[in-house]
C-alpha cells in the first residue's frame, strides 16, 4: 500500500469535511480556516490531480457560475478507495507514532 503524502491527506480530509461543495476555492478556504495558512492554488491542484488519477477522489463538472466569468465549477468527492486509503493512513500513523511520546520524553531529559 502506498502511503498518502501530507498534502494529499490534508486535501482528502478537507474534501470529506466540506461534503458536497468541495471545489478549488472552497478547499483552499477550508484549509485556511483549519491551519491558518493560505495555500497557493498550485500546491492544491497538483495533489488533487494525483488523487483523481489514483481514483481516491472523483471530479464532476458543475454548472457555470456568473461569479466566475461564466466558467463551470468542478466538484470533488472522496471515493470509497479514498476513504479506505485515509483509514489505512491513520492506522499506519498510529503504528508509527506508537510509543513515540514516551521515547521523546526520555530523550528530552
Amino acid at each position, binding site marked *: 500500500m502506498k502511503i498518502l503524502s501530507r498534502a494529499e491527506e490534508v486535501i482528502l480530509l478537507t474534501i470529506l469535511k466540506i461534503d458536497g461543495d468541495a471545489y478549488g476555492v472552497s478547499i483552499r478556504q477550508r484549509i485556511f480556516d483549519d491551519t491558518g495558512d493560505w495555500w*497557493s*492554488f*498550485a500546491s492544491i491542484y497538483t495533489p488533487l490531480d494525483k488523487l483523481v488519477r489514483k481514483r481516491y477522489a472523483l471530479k464532476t463538472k458543475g454548472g457555470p457560475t456568473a*461569479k*466566475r*466569468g461564466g*466558467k*463551470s*465549477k468542478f466538484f470533488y468527492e472522496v471515493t470509497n478507495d479514498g476513504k479506505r486509503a485515509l483509514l489505512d493512513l491513520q492506522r499506519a500513523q498510529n503504528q508509527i507514532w506508537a510509543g513515540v511520546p514516551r521515547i521523546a520524553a526520555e530523550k528530552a531529559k
Partner: protein
Amino acid sequence: MKVPDFILRILLKDEEYVEKSGDLEEVYLDMIEKTGSFRAKIWLWIEVMKAAPEFARNLVYWRVLMLWNYLGISIRQLKKRKGFSFINILGLGLGMACFLLIFLLIRFELSFDDFHEHRDDIYRVNQAFSSERGGRVSSYTPYEIGRALGEEFPEVVTAARLTTLFNAEILVRCEGKTFFESRHILADPAFFQIFSFPVVFGNPEALRPNPNSVVISDVVAKKYFGKGDPMGRRLTINGDRDFLVSGVIRIPENTDFQYDLVFPMKSFEKDIDYGWRALRYETFIRLKKGARPRDVEEKIWALQNNNIPKGRENSGLPFQKLSQIHLYEANGEPGATARYMVVFGLSGVFILLIACVNFMNLSTARSEQRAREVGIRKTVGAERGQIIRQFYVESFLITTLALFCALLIVLLFLPVFRQLVGARLSIGQAGPQVFIGMLGAWFVTAIVSGGYPALFLSSFRPVQVLRGKFIKGCKGAASRKGLVVFQFSLSVFFIISTLVVYSQLRFIDARYEAMDKSHLVYLRMDGGSDVRGPLLKEALRKYPEIRSLTVTQQLPLSIGYNRNVWTSPAKSQDTRFNLFYNMADFDFVRMFNMEIIEGRDFSEDNATDGLNCILNEEAVRKLGLENPVGRKIIYWDDKVGTVIGVVKDFNYQHISNRIQPLVLCARPDWLNRKYLVARLAPGELKSALGHIHREWNTINPGIPFELRFFENVFDRIYRDERAMGRVFLTFALLTIFISCLGLFGLASFMAERRRKEVVVRKVLGASIARISVMLSSGFTKSVLLANVIAWPAAYLAMRMWLQSYAYHARIDPAVFLLAAALAEAIALVSVGYQSIRAAYVNPADGLRHE
C-alpha cells in the same frame, strides 16, 4: 487580467482550463472587493507563476507519451502499406535531393569571394561613360585611377590594379620543362593586402613581389616542382625573363580570381599604359573601416575629369562591392549567373512541391481507410488536435526517411550534377549551412505535405463516418484533381522548356553549319613560334590528309578586336567608323566556307590584296556604301586599301550578340597571327595529327605542342546553353517521374475503391476495354487541363529566354502538341496498368468482398 489567463489557456486543456481559471477568477474578484485591485493583481500573478511550471511539465509529459504512441501507429501504417510508403519516400526523396543539390549550387554561387578578411571594405572601381550607343559601365579603368586612389586618398587603405599580359598564353620554363599557362595576371603589390588568399608557402605579410618575383598557385607549384619546396626557385617566362617564386597561395574554387601566376606589374614596365583614359586595368580598393564609398567616388571622379580634355568627361566612377561582382554586371544589373540561379531556385522549389503533392494526394486518397480509425479515436475521446498531431507525426516520419533517401541520392549524384552545371561543388565546403538547408527542407516538406491530410482527415465527423455515411470519393476528390493538374502543368512546362532549349541549340548549330567545324583543328603559336607560322603552314601543305590551312589572328568563332577605320577621301569625324577586324592569310574566307555575295575573294595572284579588304554586309550598311566594291578604306595606321568584296553576314561572336560591322583584311605587314587552323580529311584524323605534331617539333623545338579542336571552342562558347539544355532535361525527367509515381499510386487506390462498381458493370456486360477507359478517363482529362495551363506560361517564359539572343529559333507550335502527347502518354501508361488490372478482376471475388 488577460495575460495570466492567456498563460493558463496555453498550458491547460479545455476542461482543466475552465476549472483552474474559474477558481482563480472567483478568488481574484473577491480580493478586488476586499483588498483593492492592485494587490489582487499581484496575488493573481504570483499564483499563476507558481502553478505554471507544474502545468507545463504535465503538458510535455503527456505530449511525449502520446508522441511515442503516434510513432508506433505510424510505423505500423508504413509497414501495412509498403507500396504506398515506397512511392511516398522515393518521390519525396527525389524531390528533396533535387532541392538540396540546387541549394548547394546556389550557396556556392553566393559564396564567391566571401573568404577575404576585408571583404566588406573591398570595392572594384568601374568606369561609367556615355557614348553615341548610350550609357555603358566598364569594369576596366585607366592606370592613373588606381595610382591616385592608393596614394592621394586618406580613406583608401590601399589600391591595386590588375591587368593581363598582351598575349593570352605565356611559355613557362622551369628546370628543363616547359608549359603554356593562360591563367596569369599582372598585379600591384597591394593585391595581397586587399585580398587574403590562403598562403601555402611564404610569409603572408611579405607576399609583395619585388620586380623579379612571382606568386604562384599550389596547383602549378605541384606541376612544376612536385613535392619539393618551391620557394626561391626560378621560372623563365617566354624564354627571356626570369622570376623567382616568392610565395605559393591556394586559389579556392569560389573566387573569380582564378590565377596561377601573379606577376608584379612593375616588371612589365614597357606594357604599362599610363594615363587617365585608356581602360586597361581592373582597379580594386580597400577602404578604411567606416569610410563612405560615395564620397570617395565623387572625389576621384572630379580628379579624373580635371585630368582629361574638356568635353570628353566620363559620367562617373561607381564603386562596386566585392560581394556584388560575381553575380552582377558592372552596371549593377543581374548577370547571367544570377538569372540562372533564379531559374534553378524556382525549379528546385517546384520539384519539391510536386513531391509534396504526391504525399498529399496519396494520403487523402486513402482517407476512407483511415476514416474509421479517426472515427473510433474521436469516439473514445481524441480531440481534433491530437489527430492532427498524429498525422503530422506520420508525415514527419516519412519525411525523415525521405531525407535519408535524399542524402543517399545527393552523395551518389553529386559528381554527375557537378558536370551538369559545370560548377565544382562539394557538401564539405558548404559546412553548417547545408545542414541548415537540409533541416529546412525536411521541416518545410513535412509541414507542407502533412498539413493538408492532417486537417482533412481530422475533420471527419465520427457519427457519419462510423455509420458508413462517408460519401465515397466526393470528399477531397476535387482538390486531389487540382493537385494532379498542378503536377502535370509543371511537367508539361518543363517538357516544353526542354524542347525549346534544344531547338535553340539546334538553331545555333545550323548557324555554323557552313563552317563544317567538325574537322577543324587549330594550334596556338605562342612563345615566339608565331614568326615561324608561314614556315609551318608551308611544311604541312604537302600532306593529303590536311585539306586546307590558314593562319589567322583570331578564330572566326570569337573575333573581338575593334579599331577605327575611315572611308576615303579624308580622315574626319564623319568618316570615322569603329569596326571589328581580323587579319589572316588570303585563304581565310575559303577555309571557313564563307559566302562572297559581291566582288571577289582575296587572291594569291593579286599583289595589292595585302592591303585590300572584304566587308561584311553589316559593315556595308553601317558605312553607308552604295557600291562597296572598289571603295577606298583608310586603316588605323593610315595605309589605304580597296574593298574587293562583301561577305555574307556570319556569327563571329556569341549568338546573343547582333552581328556587328566587320572588316576582313590580310595585312601581311602585321605579324600577330597566332592561330594555325587546319581542316583535316574525314577518317584520317590520326595520321594528320601525327604529321602536324612531327612538323611542329621540327620547326618549334622545345615549345609545347597544344592542338585543339574547333568543336571544343564552340562548346566552351555555348557552355551555358548546353548546361541549360541538360539541366532542363533533367528537371523534366524528374518532374515527370515524380508525378507519375504519384499518379500510379493514386490510380491504384482509385481502382481499389471502385472495385465493386467495376464488378457490377462487368456482370451487366461491360467489356474490359470500356472499364479501363472509364477508370483512366478522369486522369486523362486532368492532364489535358494541365496542358492548357502550362502552354501560355511556358510560351511566355521561353519567349523571354529566346529574346536574350539576337538570333533565335522560332517557337514551333508542334512543341506544344508534342509536350501534350508526351504527358498524356506517360500518364496513360502509369494509370493504364492499374485500370486494366482492375478491369480483369473476377466478379465473384469482387462481390464477395464483404
